[in-house]
């Protein structure tokens, strides 16, 4: 239905059509804006311009006039335009404040080697470090206190752990249900089972969080008898429940779009319903099923409220499924309010957000591609 030919559009109509085109750009523009503006907040950190060391080099205010202006600007951490707008007295006052702030750091920290490191260096973000008071090198995320420790490994592990548990629960259950509903169930059961399962998608994640927090957590603890009521396992199961509708409906779509000829041929050759479903339909729809799993992964790793409420929020590194844990999303949600805008902690939370965006972008792209190919193939052969 392209533009009609032979019929010249009115200038007004031409303009409106351009406008429609411009609006259709919005989705692409928004996606770029998200990437640019989340990435932008974390740029100083990525380029090593942010220093979070407790004790930083201090230049006495009396020496201000001897410093070259460029060096002074960099020392005061200002943009050129900010710097130009300051008069001499203000600059002097700022330098004095820095001097006084340095003088107020309590004595014990002066000897502490940790107080002088920039805890935002990649080394400290990713590798274990033997902080003062720790016996051995450890991964520590502790953005409050005097010395801020920003090791993101516990959060990455937390996110992956919860996501994997969620998928291990959600994938078999959703695929089983999708196979049953699309191939095996009597038509009348199918009529209402499908919308009912999709109704799960209408439950907001905060409600799922409340349910998991008050009902599921106690039930699971009684069943499995572990120590902490809120842990990665419960969070994973609850997370899985939020991902079920997505995985189910994509997989069900893929299974239902396998041409009827396939099933009829198999049944005519004497295969049972189960044999047809598991050996003919499922393999034919396999890419769609794969896409469902990939998109389910993206959904799980990005889910916030359930994990925030049910995982116990302990940011320590642990591989045990029954320890309290904390994900990237929950960390952003819980700590953004107390992070100073533009400060090291703020930049780091945006870094985590950028990471999340990139990961989900890649999984979505992959899932999308697979679904498209499958559709083209099945429709081509039908």
């Amino acid at each position, binding site marked *: 239905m392209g*533009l009609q030919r032979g019929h010249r559009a009115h200038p007004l109509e031409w303009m409106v059509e351009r406008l429609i085109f411009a609006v259709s750009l919005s989705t692409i523009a928004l996606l770029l804006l998200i990437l640019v503006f989340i990435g932008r907040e974390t740029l100083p950190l990525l380029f090593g311009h942010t220093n979070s060391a407790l004790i930083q080099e201090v230049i006495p205010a009396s020496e201000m006039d001897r410093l070259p202006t460029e060096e002074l600007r960099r020392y005061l951490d200002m943009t050129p335009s900010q710097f130009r707008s300051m008069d001499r007295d203000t600059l002097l006052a700022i330098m004095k404040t820095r001097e006084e702030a340095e003088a107020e750091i309590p004595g014990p920290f002066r000897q502490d080697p940790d107080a002088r490191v920039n805890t935002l260096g990649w080394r400290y973000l990713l590798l274990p470090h033997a902080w003062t008071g720790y016996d051995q090198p450890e991964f520590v995320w502790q953005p409050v206190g005097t010395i801020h420790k920003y090791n993101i490994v516990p959060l990455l592990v937390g996110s992956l752990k919860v996501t994997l548990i969620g998928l291990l629960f959600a994938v078999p259950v959703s695929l*089983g249900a999708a196979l049953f509903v699309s191939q095996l169930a009597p038509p009348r059961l199918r009529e209402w*089972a499908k919308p009912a399962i999709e109704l799960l998608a209408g439950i907001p994640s905060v409600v799922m969080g409340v349910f998991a927090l008050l009902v599921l957590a106690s039930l699971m603890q009684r069943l499995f008898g572990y120590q902490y009521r809120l842990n990665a396992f419960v969070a994973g199961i609850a997370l899985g429940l939020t991902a079920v509708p997505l995985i189910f409906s994509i997989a069900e779509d893929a299974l239902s779009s396998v041409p009827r000829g396939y099933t009829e041929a198999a049944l005519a050759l004497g295969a049972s319903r*189960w044999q047809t479903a598991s050996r003919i339909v499922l393999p034919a729809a396999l890419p769609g099923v794969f896409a469902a799993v990939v998109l389910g992964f993206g959904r799980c790793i990005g889910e916030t*409220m359930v994990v925030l409420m049910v995982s116990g929020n302990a940011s320590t590194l642990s591989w045990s499924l029954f320890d309290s844990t904390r994900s990237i999303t929950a960390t952003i949600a819980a700590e953004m309010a107390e992070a100073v805008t533009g400060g090291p902690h703020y930049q780091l939370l945006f870094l985590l957000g950028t990471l999340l965006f990139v990961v989900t972008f890649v999984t979505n792209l992959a*899932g999308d591609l697979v679904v498209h190919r499958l559709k083209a193939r099945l429709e081509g052969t039908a």
Partner: protein
Amino acid sequence: MLGTALTGFATALLLLTLAVILGTVILQGLPSLSWRFVSTAPRRDFFDPQSAAVLPMIIGTTIRVLVMTVFVMPVGVITAVYLTEYARAGSPYTRAVRVAINNLAGVPSIVFGLFGLGFLINFVGRGIDSVTGAVGPHWGQPSVFWASLTLAVMTLPVVIVATEESLRAIPVGLREASLALGATKLETVVQIVLPNALPGILTGGILAVSRAAGEVAPILFTGAAYYMAHFPRQLTDQFMDLGYHTYVLATQSPNVEQTRPILFATVLVLLALTFSLNAVAIIVRARVRRAQRAGS
């Protein structure tokens, strides 16, 4: 046989879970639900069952989804019109738009929150403040306006996909008849295609509202307030929100057992809101599909 039993069991498990969730919420929430609870503002302590109430939260959530609708509907519908009526199928640009829509739908909700904070509030909002020369932050702070806009970005794919589906359901013959009678392309779209697609477009809007009404993560730092003494009076005010209030009640109560009944009552109100919207959308869509099948 075993396979059928296992997959049947998976289906039963999911249906059972749904029933348990709804059952728990209804059974535990209903006793505390009263007219006073939904029609007044909380006096004093909102963790205390005696004085707890949710009217400001209902109002806050309503305002934010309404403002969101104002922004998301035109953009979503126009994009869908472009995709179905104007775009050449398979051109690189069309494909790019589709990829962008699918990706936007998969961006985690907390990332939208970061976007609202980093772009809308800290960049656009502060930009407006510095241009208008406001004393102190006015636009450059969390507010119901920025929260609504954040949600509009988030629900854009929902509206586009639903609208597109309903536009594609309009028979090509209808368009051709209109064009043959001398109507221009735009006249056909505005006077023939869009009115016929209205139920589907409304479905998209309702689905977007129902999705947005329960979302908490994107508004955590773009506008939701822990407590406010008055209703939001202007778009730059913060607001209390049903979903966020649920989160607060569930995690920050000094006395969990005492708060439990009102927590479930709040959840019940929230679920009633999102489910009734969903149900309407499902019914409208079913009708549209039936009409479409009858027509083709």
